[in-house]
C-alpha cells in the first residue's frame, strides 16, 4: 500500500506525522504512528520537531495519556464558543472522589471513604465510571478482595495530562507522605465512612505497595 522503496528524509517524515496527527480522530501513540510509516523512521524526532514548530501557534501538539494529539491553544478558549460543549457539572463530592482516585490509585471504595471521612453516596462512583474518567482496575489482595479503582485514559485526555506523573503537585504530595494510604500507627479516628466490612486495616501488607508503585510508574 505504501511506497516502501522510498526512504523519506526527516522533513518528509515530519510532514507525514503531521498529516497523520491532523487527520486522526483521537490521540495516537508513537507506535501507531510508526506503524504507518516506512520501517526505521524516527518518529520521536519528528514529533519533537513538530512540537517546536507549533509552539505558540493557534494549534499545538500535546501529549496525553502517552499519546499525541493536536489541540487548540488554551489561551484561545474564549473564541471557541461554538465548539464548546456544556460540561457535565461534577459535584464537589464527585470531584474530590476523582482526585482521590487519581492521586491514590489503585484505591478501594473504603479507602476513598476513609480519606473523605464520609460514606460515598450512591451515584458518585457510577457517574465517574459512566463518564469514562474512572475504571475498575482489579482486586486488592486482601481479605474480601475489594475491587480497586483507577483513572482511565479519558481522564488524562480530558485534563491534558501526559502521564499520571504530571498530575499537579503529585511529587510534593508523595514526598510529604500524603499519598500513603496506610495511616500512621495508632491512628484511631471515628470513621463514619468506614462500613462494617472494614478491609483496609490490612493495607500495610507488603503485597500492596509494590502493586501501587508499579502501576503508578507504569502508566
Amino acid at each position: 500500500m505504501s511506497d516502501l522503496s522510498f526512504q523519506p528524509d526527516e522533513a518528509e517524515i515530519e510532514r507525514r506525522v503531521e498529516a497523520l496527527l491532523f487527520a486522526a480522530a483521537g490521540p495516537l501513540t508513537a507506535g501507531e504512528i510508526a506503524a504507518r510509516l516506512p520501517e526505521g523512521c524516527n518518529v520521536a524526532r519528528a514529533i519533537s520537531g513538530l512540537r517546536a514548530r507549533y509552539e505558540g501557534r493557534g494549534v499545538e501538539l500535546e501529549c496525553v495519556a502517552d499519546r499525541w494529539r493536536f489541540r487548540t491553544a488554551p489561551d484561545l478558549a474564549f473564541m471557541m464558543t461554538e465548539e464548546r460543549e456544556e460540561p457535565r457539572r461534577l459535584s464537589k463530592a464527585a470531584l474530590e472522589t476523582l482526585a482521590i482516585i487519581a492521586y491514590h490509585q489503585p484505591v478501594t471504595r473504603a479507602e476513598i471513604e476513609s480519606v473523605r471521612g464520609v460514606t460515598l453516596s450512591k451515584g458518585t462512583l457510577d457517574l465517574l465510571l459512566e463518564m469514562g474518567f474512572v475504571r475498575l482496575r482489579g482486586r486488592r489482595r486482601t481479605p474480601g478482595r475489594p475491587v480497586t479503582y483507577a483513572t482511565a485514559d479519558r481522564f488524562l485526555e480530558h485534563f491534558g495530562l501526559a502521564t499520571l506523573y504530571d498530575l499537579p503537585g503529585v511529587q510534593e504530595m508523595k514526598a510529604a507522605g500524603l499519598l500513603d494510604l496506610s495511616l500512621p500507627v495508632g491512628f484511631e479516628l471515628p470513621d463514619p465512612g468506614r462500613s462494617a466490612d472494614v478491609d483496609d486495616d490490612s493495607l500495610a501488607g507488603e503485597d500492596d505497595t509494590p502493586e501501587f508503585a508499579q502501576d503508578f510508574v507504569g502508566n
Partner: protein
Amino acid sequence: MTDAFQPNLDFSAAAEVEEREAFVVDLDGYEGPLHVLLALARTQKVDLLKLSITQLAEQYLAFVHEARRRNFALAADYLVMASWLAYLKSRLLLPRADKDKGEEPPAEVMAAALAFRLQKLEAMRKAVEQLMARPQLKRDVFTRGDPEATVIVPSDRIDASLYDLMSAYVTQRRREGARHYSPGQRVEAFPLEAARDWLREVMPRLADWTPLDQVAPHPEDDDGPSQASYTASTLSASLELVKEGAMEIRQTQAFAELFLKRRGGGHPLELTP
C-alpha cells in the same frame, strides 16, 4: 436617608444576622465532620501539622453546639466526632500520669494523626482546584473539529471498560428476567366462606375465651394457604359473627392476643396441639 439617626446598634444586629446566615450556608456546604474540621482548621492560619488540636476541638464543639441550638438535624457522624474530640481534648489537657492505658496511643500521637488526616484531605481539595484550573478538553482546548473522512482509528485499542462489560451483563439479565416473568403461583388465601363454616363448626366448643390462634385452622401441608391467611380469615369471619350476635371478641390491649367466645353455653374447645 436617615443615616444620621441610625443608631450603631442596628449595624451590629445586621452583622449578627449575616453571621448567622453564613453559618447556615456553611453547614450546607459541608459533607461531613472532617470537612467541617478542615474549614475550622483553616481559620487558625497555621500549617495543618502545627495545628492546635485543643483549639480545634473547642471550635468544633462550639460548631456542634451552635448547630444543635438552632435545631439543625446533625447526622450522627458529627456527634460521634464531637465526643471523640472532647475526649481527645481532655486527654491532651490532663497530665499524662497513668501508664496502664498502654493499649491506647498517646494523645499527642492521636492529635498528630488527626492533623495529618486533615492535611491529606486538604491536599485533595487543592488537587481538585489545580485540576480544574487546567485547560480542559472541549471547554478550553479543542481537538480537530472535523477529522478526515478516512479516520485513522488507533488500531489496537478497543473502547470497552470493565464497567461497560458489567452494565451490558446486568442489562441483559434484567431483560431476561422481564422476558421470563411469570406471575408464579397465586398466593392462596383461606376463603372467608370457608372460615365462616369453620367457625360455625367449632363454635359449640367456644364456651370459654379462647385465643384466636387456637381457633383458626392449622395448615396440614405446605401447599395450602399460609398460617397467616388462616388466622386473618378466621378473624374476619369471627368479626362478622360478632356482628350477627353469635360471638364475642376481646383484646386487652393493642397487639395483645385476641380471644373469642360464643354467646350462650356449650362445650369448651378441645385443644389439640
